[in-house]
């Protein structure tokens, strides 16, 4: 008998206390969903979802969340590059500012946006005076800004992590083969970064889709302009229309599941390169 510690413990019984806690954890996460699905009026679901107000909220949600994700990508990618590739004084501070919206209560973000971009706010007044923009409050643009505020950090940290994993020597190698900066970016950096960018964009889009606090605080709750699905759900629930609230919730659960399935391929089981056969190039 060796006294070496056995790293594999195939025959040990799993510790009951830990398994029990894990089951309770799953219950805490799953039971609300079960309760909701159990109350769902499946037969009238289609009719409820087909109502004009619901469709309108769905349209606002789609528009706002996609635009917010687009803003996150367009502004977030250069920011991620700066954070990953440049070292400068205050980089830790910049990263803290970038991450803040992830831990900040969204309603606080909404208040902050209101005082910055509102008609009397620091930036809001400048927008009014110089660009003639009356106000962002109550507009779809305002809702997009609120959603981008909370969702951009998700894109930035994912893209930054991707950039840090990318071997900068590959970019140097491309330059020693004659590739200028733009070619390196287009043919090496971005393609290698694509999985991270896709994951980051999906995450930030998902966050924007679920956004409630900052939107309602900053952009308000105006049907057809800023009333997204989460706002419409809250509205319906408070107005004593639980069927509508449940139906729209089921819709959002479905979308969330689709996002998870989409991300699973990117994260949990990264695709392996497919074997390509090219018989035309084999001389044999």
């Amino acid at each position, binding site marked *: 008998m060796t006294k070496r510690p056995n790293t594999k413990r195939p025959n040990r019984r799993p510790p009951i206390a830990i398994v029990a806690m894990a089951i309770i954890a799953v219950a805490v996460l799953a039971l609300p969903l079960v309760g909701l699905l159990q109350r769902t009026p499946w037969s009238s679901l289609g009719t409820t979802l087909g109502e004009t107000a619901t469709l309108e909220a769905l349209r606002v949600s789609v528009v706002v969340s996609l635009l917010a994700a687009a803003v996150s990508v367009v502004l977030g990618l250069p920011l991620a590059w700066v954070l990953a590739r440049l070292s400068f004084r205050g980089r830790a501070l910049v990263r803290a500012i970038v991450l803040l919206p992830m831990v900040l209560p969204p309603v606080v973000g909404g208040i902050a946006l209101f005082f910055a971009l509102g008609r009397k706010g620091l930036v809001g007044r400048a927008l009014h005076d110089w660009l003639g923009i009356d106000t962002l409050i109550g507009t779809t643009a305002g809702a997009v800004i609120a959603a981008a505020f909370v969702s951009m950090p998700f894109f930035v940290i994912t893209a930054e992590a991707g950039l840090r994993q990318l071997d900068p020597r590959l970019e140097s190698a491309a330059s*020693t*083969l004659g590739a200028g900066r733009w070619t390196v970016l287009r043919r090496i950096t971005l393609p*290698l970064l694509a999985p991270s960018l896709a994951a980051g964009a999906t995450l930030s889009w998902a966050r924007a889709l679920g956004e409630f606090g900052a939107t309602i605080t900053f952009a308000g709750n105006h049907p057809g302009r800023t009333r997204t699905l989460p706002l419409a759900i809250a509205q319906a629930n408070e107005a004593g229309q639980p069927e509508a609230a449940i139906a729209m919730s089921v819709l959002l659960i479905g979308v969330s599941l689709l996002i998870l399935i989409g991300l699973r391929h990117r994260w949990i089981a990264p695709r392996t*390169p497919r074997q*390509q056969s090219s018989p035309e*190039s*084999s001389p*044999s």
Partner: protein
Amino acid sequence: MSIQAQVHAATGDFTIRAQLDAPAGSCTAIVGPNGAGKTTLVHVLAGLIPLQRGNVVLAGQLVDHPAQGIHVPPDRRPIALHSQHNLLFPHLSVVDNVAFGPRCAGLAARPARRRAEEWLNKVGLADLAGLRPAQLSGGQAQRVGLARAAACEPAVLLLDESLASLDAETRTDVRHLLADIDATRVLITHDPVETRVLADQLLVMERGEIVQTGTPVEVASDPRTPWTAGLLDINLLAGIAAGTEVALEGGLALTTATPMTGPVLVTFSPAAVTLSTAEPHTSARNTWQAEVARIQPESDRVRVLLGRPVPCQVWVTPQAVGELGLSTGSRCWAALKATELTVREA
């Protein structure tokens, strides 16, 4: 001159100082211990590391002159670099990797692909064109990396240990390929055979400085530092084989244990040769009378360099030198067993 470089550069705490002149179409081998600054020097030529002082002229183009504020980025230099890490682009197929340089040089997709296929064919990997780099073995990846740099068809081809992980047979093929390339080549290597066969000039680098320059034969016959002597601690002779007989340049014929035909390289250790004053009667298949060209005492042994008929080096003990009465210009007999010889295709 295709390369004229006065290099004074630094990465971190490490400084290199080197001068390099290479005529167009020549091959310069840079040898030296690990950490000597060989890769740094090549990266300076490639433009990946900025020069602190000095200047670099490549194929008539002034690419580095810090005093005049000139630093041409790698992509606008007449170079291609094959790094020792290969650095194949993982998202591109093998053929697209090799076509990358030609595409950057402005070739359209189809001609670039055709040139890539030609080069893959030259390194013997045409049938792997559609694979991804992750599916290649180390040796295959190295040949793809080499083909990718060569496909740029640059004026100056920079090769950082490009043959290191190839097996003996492929190594010979690729060495032939490198010998036939028109470009001015700068090659970092650890292989004494490579330096002898490929290099027109040898640069020995140690601790960031060039300690010796010359043709491989010059350096081998007069190594200035222990490291150089160690690298070249091998006798390497070229000849023509017919069966187990190899006719060497210089008139001597050696008997080997391995039958071969055609041009070959014969290598043997300096320890494999025994010296005597009279003609030896031994089982050794090869004996010849030689002239002592030089005697070079080292710490615990003496390196005897034999001249005519073929140059080779022999290690003996200090006692043996006295007993045999060896001195420069004296004559002695050398004996070498056939089984001590390694013969390979040239």
